[in-house]
């Protein structure tokens, strides 16, 4: 096994031409990337002001005609696609590919789905920029708290419209037909998917208590008045006196919606001190031993093997526990795992990884128009998993026959795009090939069109692994 290629492909986003010879000490190269993750500026169409304007237009278009609604929706889609392209270009060009891989990992761990609701899509890019990137080498609990307070998550898992049954708002709204109450969606996924894991030792009562704790954690600037569109707009505007239709969109703790009283979560009592009650519960959940185990299992599955070796999981969980979830320390521990460098353990590239690796190998730094639809065809559209558990992370998930055929076909599209200047022999430098691999002679076989040789290398089995 070539250690440099393992570092570039397994921990990074795919080796570039000549890179394997240049990185020197592979572990040192990885460690050097764990300093700071570059902050990204929002694309022009997605500045906070532009985002607020587009969302307000969309909300008011709900009362308008079909053309207005369509135009408003298109504006949201444009924001989402500008954000996707910016994020993908960062993956293509990054000089800290290990850190970028961690961004993608945590983004998927605490995923939102742009496909779930019209109002999630425009916030998906901002979610990764503001929730994931700043904390990817920081503390897990800070990342989870940022996630809990971001409009994308609040909308995606409905917490923004969860109302304490004994809150002031519920008491006032009781006379209104159809006024809703507690929504457990976010509380449940926070326990099941973000922190303790489904077998982490919590009960349905913990879910409900946590949901009560989190009532009042909502989004400002989304006034839900007006006629019932899609069953949404069912609370009178008067329940949200502090919110204005044209205000900023962001986290707000709304005491009127908050369930009053002390709460018991996982056997510990939390006094009601408003937003701080939830903040303390969330920090405790992040420090729970089940969380360390759950997160470590997912990390090892991502970086080492589909069936995570128990010893590796225990080491990573230990690093997580010992540092109270210092994610840079956890990332360093991943580099030090002997299993990370075991040639017998391979990871099948996810569709996004495969696509990015193909373009990085040839140093492509811009995206063709179809990039977003390519990822859709490969069944892994950026930030749009089908369920809150995120995209799967195993060969079983991605290496089905139809997907291999998809890759075979898309490889030709990619090869056409790379054009005649791209030398198929680059593929020998970026892939860890066995000595007798037929690709070695095939890339120089003049009887095959150069574009086909490129496509064969990209679609061939060696390039499917990292």
């Amino acid at each position, binding site marked *: 096994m070539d250690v440099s290629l393992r570092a570039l492909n397994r921990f990074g986003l795919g080796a570039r031409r000549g890179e394997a010879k240049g990185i020197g000490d592979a572990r040192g190269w990885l460690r050097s990337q764990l300093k700071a993750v570059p902050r990204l500026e929002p694309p022009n169409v997605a500045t906070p002001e532009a985002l607020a304007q587009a969302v307000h237009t969309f909300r008011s278009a709900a009362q308008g005609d*079909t053309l207005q609604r369509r135009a408003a929706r298109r504006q949201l889609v444009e924001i989402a696609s500008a954000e996707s392209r910016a994020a993908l270009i960062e993956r293509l060009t990054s000089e800290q590919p290990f850190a970028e891989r961690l961004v993608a990992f945590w983004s998927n761990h605490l995923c939102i789905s742009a496909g*779930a*609701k019209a109002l999630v899509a425009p916030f998906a890019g901002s979610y990764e920029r503001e929730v994931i990137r700043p904390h990817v080498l920081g503390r897990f609990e800070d990342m989870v708290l940022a996630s809990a307070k971001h409009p994308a998550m609040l909308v995606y898992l*409905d917490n923004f419209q969860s109302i304490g049954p004994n809150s002031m708002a519920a008491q006032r709204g009781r006379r209104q*037909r*159809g006024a809703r109450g507690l929504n457990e*969606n976010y509380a*449940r*996924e926070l326990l*099941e*998917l973000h922190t303790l894991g*489904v077998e982490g030792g919590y009960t349905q009562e913990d879910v409900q208590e946590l949901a009560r704790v989190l009532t009042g954690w909502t989004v400002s600037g989304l006034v839900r008045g007006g*006629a*019932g*569109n*899609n*069953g949404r707009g069912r609370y009178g505007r008067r329940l949200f006196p502090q919110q204005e239709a044209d205000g900023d969109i962001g986290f707000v703790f709304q005491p009127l919606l908050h369930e009053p009283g002390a709460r018991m979560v996982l056997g510990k009592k939390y006094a009601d001190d408003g937003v701080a009650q939830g903040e303390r519960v969330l920090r405790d959940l992040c420090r729970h031993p089940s969380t360390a185990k759950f997160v470590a299992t997912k990390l090892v599955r991502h970086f080492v093997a589909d069936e995570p070796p128990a010893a590796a999981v225990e080491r990573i969980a230990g690093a997580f526990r010992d540092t109270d979830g210092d994610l840079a320390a956890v990332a360093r521990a991943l580099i030090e795992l002997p299993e990370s460098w075991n040639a017998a353990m391979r990871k099948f590239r996810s569709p996004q990884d495969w696509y990015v690796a193909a373009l990085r190998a040839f140093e492509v730094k811009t995206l063709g128009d179809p990039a977003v639809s390519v990822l*859709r*065809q490969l*069944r892994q559209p950026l930030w749009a998993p*089908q*369920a*809150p*558990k995120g995209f*799967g992370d195993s*060969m*079983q*998930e991605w*290496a*089905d*026959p*139809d*997907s*291999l*055929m*998809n890759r*075979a*076909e*898309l490889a*030709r*599209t990619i090869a056409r795009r790379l054009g005649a200047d791209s030398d198929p022999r680059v593929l020998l430098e970026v892939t860890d090939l*066995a000595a007798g*691999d*037929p*690709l070695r002679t*095939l890339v120089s076989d003049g009887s*095959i069109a150069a574009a*086909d040789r490129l*496509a*064969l290398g990209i*679609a*061939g*089995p*060696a390039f*499917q692994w990292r």
Partner: protein
Amino acid sequence: MNRRQFLRNMCYGGIATFALPRVTFAQVSQGGRLVFVLLRGGFDGLAAVVPYGDSRYESLRGSLALDPTDLFELSDLFALAPGLAPLREAWQRNELLVVHAMAIPYRTRSHFDGQAILETGLDRPAGSSDGWLNRLLQVMSGKRSGIAIAAGMPRSMSGPFDVQTWSPAQLGHVDDAYLERLAVLYRTDAALQGRFEAALQQQETVGEEPMAARGARRGGITPIMRATARILRQDEGPNIAAMEFSGWDTHANQGLAGGALDRLLGQLAEGLMVLRTDMGTAWANTTVVVMTEFGRTARPNGTRGTDHGTAGAGFVMGPTVARSAVLSDWPGLDDRSLFEGRDLRPTLDTRAVLKAAIAGTFDLTPAQAARVFPGSDAVRGAYDVMR
């Protein structure tokens, strides 16, 4: 060498390691086939299966009330929308169970939650849960396999049991020489070789003709049904297929006979009948289940459409049903009967129908069927609707 010969050489040499449609799928004893068709978006049950005999129907539906003379009568109370006319033949042959006032067990008007509930088969959302079709594959014994006919892996099919996919979204023709060279490369990888050969096999099975039809790539239902039949009808083809079609979220201008929704219903009915024909002799053991995440509001909205509601209609089709019938404990359409004053009230749990359909297709016991739907012990399967 053309692709057909090439495949013979490759795939019949006994080297395949992954489940190939014709090569390594061993026969399930009963040879049953289950096709689960998910209509994403919430299809309007009251527009499809019309309760024309309910005295409140006309006044409640207002501008969306269909003219009874356009309908195909099923009983004194129910009739099929004009677009569904192709299903007449299935009805007359005792192969069509029409289900009404049915809903998932969780009250939501969100597509996202509704589809999650229908596809996981649970009674409340659970983000990490797998699909009920995958659970069904785990519960069944013997050799069996599933396939998702969809651009992405539908939640209903996802889970630890390895399933195949086939999507009509594939790009155009890929020439044989390229695929042959690629197959040679894949021979060097023991983990992937069988999977790649299965992909070649699948392409060969479906052929290019169904997808060459007009509209096939825009998601027309009939060509996809044609391709599905080709995959399922093989002796050792998959036992379970998940399909999905969208376009049912009719908030505006859903129309009357010949209108937008009726045309879509027409495509669905035509597609189902094509599947029925193209399955050939394998149809005898086939059950098709058509469901949606929720019904729609009983009254039209301000834009001549309907909004997200609660109970709706569905279908179970195949020679495996006991006889053509409407399965419904009809709640009525007067104001007090409507759920929250606006939607058709649910009187039947989707899982009662699903349990019956899987038990009838695969000879499962009620206890086995219950394992597919954890937490559904209180929901009795409607077992007598199946043969």
